[in-house]
């Protein structure tokens, strides 16, 4: 009876392994795709890959089900019913491309403003942005404006880097790690690998988040802060560091503008700007000579204190003094912030003391000589092992830019940027602070049939760089206007609203890629749908033509007129480029590709292939030869290899040069893609040990980075504790200069454009009745889902098919509700009915739910009885894209006043028990779904792989 069965132990995983790049989220990990009989048998992590080093997360390991999702689009489609009906007719690619070319030609030939081209979470912005430049429209951006521009801009203006993709904690050496507002995603595997290392080493992990799940669950200390008050908490930490005289003065003098002198002349046109010498460089007080000196010079001994009389008799004070006075103010004392943050003063003091102790008594020393930008040799690399990471909890508030800047100031005061144990830049960062790119798209730069003179997005230094003519916005999203002067990623979340209301103007074609704007990527879903379907008095759509590309039947698909079906991530070429958002790590510059590891079984094409094709059909100069023939007849892979942005610089950095022996810069190599594939679809240039740290001021690194085109020059990046461009906007609001904000905007610009970061209450809670809406409402992102994508995945939706509203025990008790009871959640915008789950590990003034689990019936290949559509819900219905009407009658977008970042987490709500049960509300009409096939009722994936099994 116990006869042992024969077991086949040596069955190969598949017939072959192909290495490409994951796209189950934005991390871009390396994967091994095991193929058997032409199907995907198994996916695991590439051990040699710099991002994931062999591991793979819950999403990546469920890639098979995404690749074979029944929601995949099958062929190009044109709309045949009314917009939003989901009635489509499948058409050929020839017809689809003819239609698209026809629609896109007219605006280009007449007024390129009439095209708005916005892309979602795609990873090809160096192509899509370039295409939009060639087209000539000023209306291009990706999803950064509703994702994390506060973080990107806050960091880039301060120290030429930023959290998330531009840098990482020094996982090997850090001893104290603070995590601010990080839900379960962003980043996925890199943070998981890193936290695992820290925990094993016994380093301390402190998480600052209203919700105790995921990473926050395993932190040594959970700081369950009230949403939107992180700036108060960080301000209080800075207060303590100053009070206890635990800041790194040498670091401040060496690497920051702390000694630079600021003109103190209230009412003058240059009040609050840096005092500058004849060469234009900022002045400092040189304590060696007892005279003014050049703040950028290495050969002086700048003073951090002391009010100085300038040659013209006016007074100037160093940044350090202004900064110390700001944060030593009583409003930033731990006692003062305790109530609003919900934290105890002694806990804040304790964290500040720990930070100081680790920074100044536990320094990390690496025996590695290096030379700084001024040629001074250092025999060791000495670091303060404090590292920090922040994400959407900081970014998605209307005070996020200033809060993010404040976190960076905290890091800098501790001397912990790009030192051993600190936060490390990833090449091509650091850039200058801010980077030297300025936005393009002013009226005189937008002409029919003429490419835009430069990139759309950039970093304004003052009102002169705004994209406005008189007071009229050049961009459809009002980016780089007085509404959001430093909107470095644009405002994708305002495009549909603005286009439908013709404010600032109407458009002809809306062209979008991979952005679920008719559902979870928009605030006020109903309002957005109304805008997408709004008609003028003649019965014509206010947005006349909508072209949309996506791989799946998302809620956005039915609202487009022409669908260009994209491939899955395993069927496509992609280029994750150093010109855009590369996969670099702190010790290396790295980029990667995707290539088709399985062939599509549907009539679909990679969006980038289509874009290049359209570029040629439209005759865009960079996509056509002189004779009018397509410049890249081989499509995206042809472009990846042969396109040069500048001589020797192309989309891919690896194996350049005729023989493939040059890195980053070199001639085109026709065999480049093969080289990438041989190497696991990525390229890494490792930095030399002497370039590893202090990259902002490291001669060897700066020389190399400038040679590679990463930097404009070899000068160091000087950390901007005091941000002069912000003051330039404030001065305009105070009545200076020839470009000033309109009266409606003047007070707002003056108030919020503070060159030294400060905290202010998030806008929504400041404008509504807080007693009526006493709770904050936010979302977290489940680790096993990526935005809207996970619910079509047969395996991932078995883990989470419906979300609950998580409420604190005391909140549940207050409304006499228990697990699974239905409640109404109400905001100034609307109300949602949902079920609750009670928990302890949440800030008592906060309710939260998982993001993007709620789905609309008819989308994503789900049946009408799917929990996602009946119990699953979105908070988006409660969030308005516009703030309530304030003084003056103007309704600003619900965004950060500086960057335009969507303020998702400013939401305030009330909760009451719902007597009825049943299904979530609001409930939208089911979408029809064209000719999409019915989804299977059973899966037995893998049965076919079993040897000898029928």
């Amino acid at each position: 009876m116990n006869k042992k069965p024969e077991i086949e132990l040596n069955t190969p995983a598949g017939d072959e392994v192909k290495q490409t790049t994951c796209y189950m989220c934005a991390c871009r990990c390396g994967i091994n795709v095991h193929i058997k009989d032409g199907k995907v048998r198994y996916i695991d992590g590439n051990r040699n890959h710099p991002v994931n080093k062999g591991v793979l997360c819950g999403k990546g390991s469920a890639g098979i089900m995404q690749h074979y999702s029944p929601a995949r689009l099958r062929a190009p489609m044109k709309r045949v019913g009314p917009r939003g009906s989901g009635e489509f007719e499948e058409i050929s690619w020839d017809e689809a491309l003819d239609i698209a070319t026809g629609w896109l030609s007219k605006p280009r030939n007449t007024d390129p403003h009439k095209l708005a081209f916005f892309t979602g979470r795609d990873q090809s912005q160096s192509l899509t942005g370039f295409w939009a430049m060639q087209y000539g429209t000023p209306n291009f951006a990706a999803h950064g404006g509703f994702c994390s521009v506060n973080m990107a801009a806050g960091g880039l203006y301060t120290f030429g880097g930023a959290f998330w993709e531009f840098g990482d904690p020094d996982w090997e050496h850090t001893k104290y790690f603070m995590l601010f507002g990080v839900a379960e995603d962003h980043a996925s595997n890199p943070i998981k690998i890193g936290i695992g290392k820290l925990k094993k080493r016994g380093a301390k992990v402190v998480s600052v988040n209203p919700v105790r799940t995921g990473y926050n669950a395993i932190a040594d200390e959970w700081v369950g802060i009230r949403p939107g008050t992180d700036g108060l908490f960080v301000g209080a930490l800075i207060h303590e560091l100053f009070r206890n005289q635990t800041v790194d003065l040498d670091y401040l003098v060496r690497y920051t503008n702390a000694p630079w002198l600021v003109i103190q002349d209230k009412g003058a046109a240059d009040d609050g700007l840096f005092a500058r010498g004849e060469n234009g460089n900022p002045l400092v007080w040189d304590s060696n000579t007892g005279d003014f000196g050049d703040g950028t010079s290495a050969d002086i001994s700048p003073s951090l204190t002391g009010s100085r009389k300038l040659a013209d008799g006016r007074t100037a004070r160093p940044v350090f003094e202004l900064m110390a006075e700001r944060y030593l103010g009583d409003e930033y004392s731990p006692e003062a912030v305790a109530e609003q943050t919900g934290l105890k003063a002694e806990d804040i003091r304790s964290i500040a003391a720990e930070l100081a102790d680790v920074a100044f008594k536990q320094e990390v020393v690496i025996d590695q000589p290096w030379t700084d930008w001024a040629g001074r040799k250092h025999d060791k690399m000495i670091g303060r092992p404090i590292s920090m990471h922040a994400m959407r909890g900081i970014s998605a508030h209307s005070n996020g830019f200033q809060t993010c800047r404040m976190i960076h100031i905290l890091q800098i005061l501790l001397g912990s940027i790009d030192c051993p144990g600190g936060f490390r830049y990833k090449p091509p960062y650091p850039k200058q602070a801010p980077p030297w790119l300025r936005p393009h798209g002013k009226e005189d730069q937008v002409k029919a049939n003429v490419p835009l003179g430069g990139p759309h997005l950039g970093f304004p230094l003052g009102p002169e760089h705004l994209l406005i003519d008189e007071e009229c916005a050049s961009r459809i999203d009002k980016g780089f206007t007085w509404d959001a002067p430093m909107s470095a990623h644009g405002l994708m979340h305002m495009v549909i609203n603005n286009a439908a209301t013709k404010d600032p103007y109407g458009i002809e074609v809306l062209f979008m890629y991979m952005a679920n704007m008719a559902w979870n990527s928009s605030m006020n879903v109903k309002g957005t749908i109304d805008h997408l379907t709004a008609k003028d008095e003649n019965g014509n759509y206010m947005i006349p033509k909508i072209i949309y590309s996506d791989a799946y039947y998302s809620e956005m698909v039915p609202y487009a007129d022409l669908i260009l079906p994209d491939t899955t991530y395993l069927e496509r070429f992609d280029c994750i480029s150093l010109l855009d958002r590369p996969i670099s790590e702190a010790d290396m510059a790295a980029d990667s590709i995707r290539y088709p590891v399985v062939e599509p079984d549907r009539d679909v094409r990679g969006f980038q292939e289509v874009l290049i094709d359209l570029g040629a059909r439209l005759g865009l100069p960079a996509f056509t030869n002189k004779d009018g023939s397509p410049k890249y007849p081989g499509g995206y892979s042809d472009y990846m290899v042969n396109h040069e942005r500048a001589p020797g610089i192309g989309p891919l950095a690896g194996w350049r040069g005729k023989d493939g022996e040059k890195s980053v810069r070199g001639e085109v190599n026709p065999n480049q893609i093969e080289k990438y594939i041989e190497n696991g679809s990525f390229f890494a240039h490792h930095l030399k040990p002497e370039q590893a740290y202090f990259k902002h001021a490291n001669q060897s690194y700066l020389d190399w980075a400038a040679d590679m085109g990463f930097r404009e020059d070899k000068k160091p990046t000087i950390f901007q504790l005091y941000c002069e461009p912000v003051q330039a906007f404030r001065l305009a609001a105070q009545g200076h200069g020839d470009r000033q904000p309109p009266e409606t905007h003047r007070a707002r610009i003056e108030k919020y454009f503070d060159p030294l970061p400060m905290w202010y209450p998030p806008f929504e809670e400041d404008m509504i009745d807080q007693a009526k809406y006493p709770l904050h409402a936010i979302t977290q992102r489940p680790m096993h889902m990526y935005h809207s994508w996970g619910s079509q995945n047969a395996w991932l939706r078995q883990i989470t098919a419906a979300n609950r509203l998580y409420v604190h025990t005391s909140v549940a008790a207050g409304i006499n509700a228990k697990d699974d009871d239905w409640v109404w959640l109400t905001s100034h915008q609307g109300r949602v009915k949902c079920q609750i789950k009670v928990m302890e590990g949440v800030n008592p003034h906060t309710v939260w739910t998982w993001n993007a689990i709620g789905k609309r019936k008819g989308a994503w290949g789900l049946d009408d009885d799917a929990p996602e559509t009946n119990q699953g819900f979105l908070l988006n219905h409660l969030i308005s894209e516009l703030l309530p009407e304030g003084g003056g009658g103007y309704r600003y977008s619900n965004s950060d006043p500086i960057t335009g970042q969507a303020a998702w987490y400013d939401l305030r709500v009330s909760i009451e028990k719902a007597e009825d049960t049943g299904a979530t509300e609001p409930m939208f009409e089911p979408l029809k779904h064209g000719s999409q096939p019915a989804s299977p009722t059973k899966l037995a994936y893998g049965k076919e792989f079993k040897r000898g099994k029928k």
Partner: protein
Amino acid sequence: MTTLPQTTEKKLGLVIDLDICVGCQACATSCKEWNTGGYSAPLSDHDPYGGDPSGAWLNRIHSYELGEGAAGRTVHFPRSCLHCEEPACVTVCPTGASYKREEDGIVLVNPDTCIGCKLCSWACPYGAREYDYDDGVMKKCTLCVDRIYNETLEEEDRVPACVRACPTGARAFGDLGDPDSEVSKNVAAREGFNLLEEFGYKPTNKYLPPRMKTSAHVSPEPARKSAPVSAGNGSMVEKLFAWADQKLSR
């Protein structure tokens, strides 16, 4: 009823570190992905796009809270077959389909002789067995028996799929019968424990408890009654500036 081996040459099993598991589900989906095409193929899914999706999973993660207020914590708890030394699921099996391997202690189900009676799932106190309704047989964790000895894989890949995938390094695989193995040493050092020890099934898999929270052991500077910012001599600002002057002029 099925008999057990007296002893096994090895006690292969998993060690799961609850201190660093973030509940990301990588071990669950990588398990599903490997095994739906491997020894247990397929791991069927029912109503995969409908109202009540369910399927056979050999590893599931539970997240729950313990304690209240400041003492509370959130725990992520991966659960799969523990490959017990005295597994009731085997002894209860009427056909011998469930068995414990002499060479390594892995508990397996022979799909050719399993009649799908589900007695084993009733007997297992850990809920580790998964009945595949479409396939009509019982499925369970095999410790990826078709990976760990698989000579077509790179040597370092010859570990269970869940261990291969785990991003935080919360899972380890090895011989818990060998006191000198890495896993055994780690269990000893971290006071690893048996799940439901009192039931007496002698699980092979071990869990490592959450560590005591790391504290930097620094006492904060006491709050001082300090003069307002802009006051005369002795304000915090002036003290800071005096310190900065003195420090930099050294």
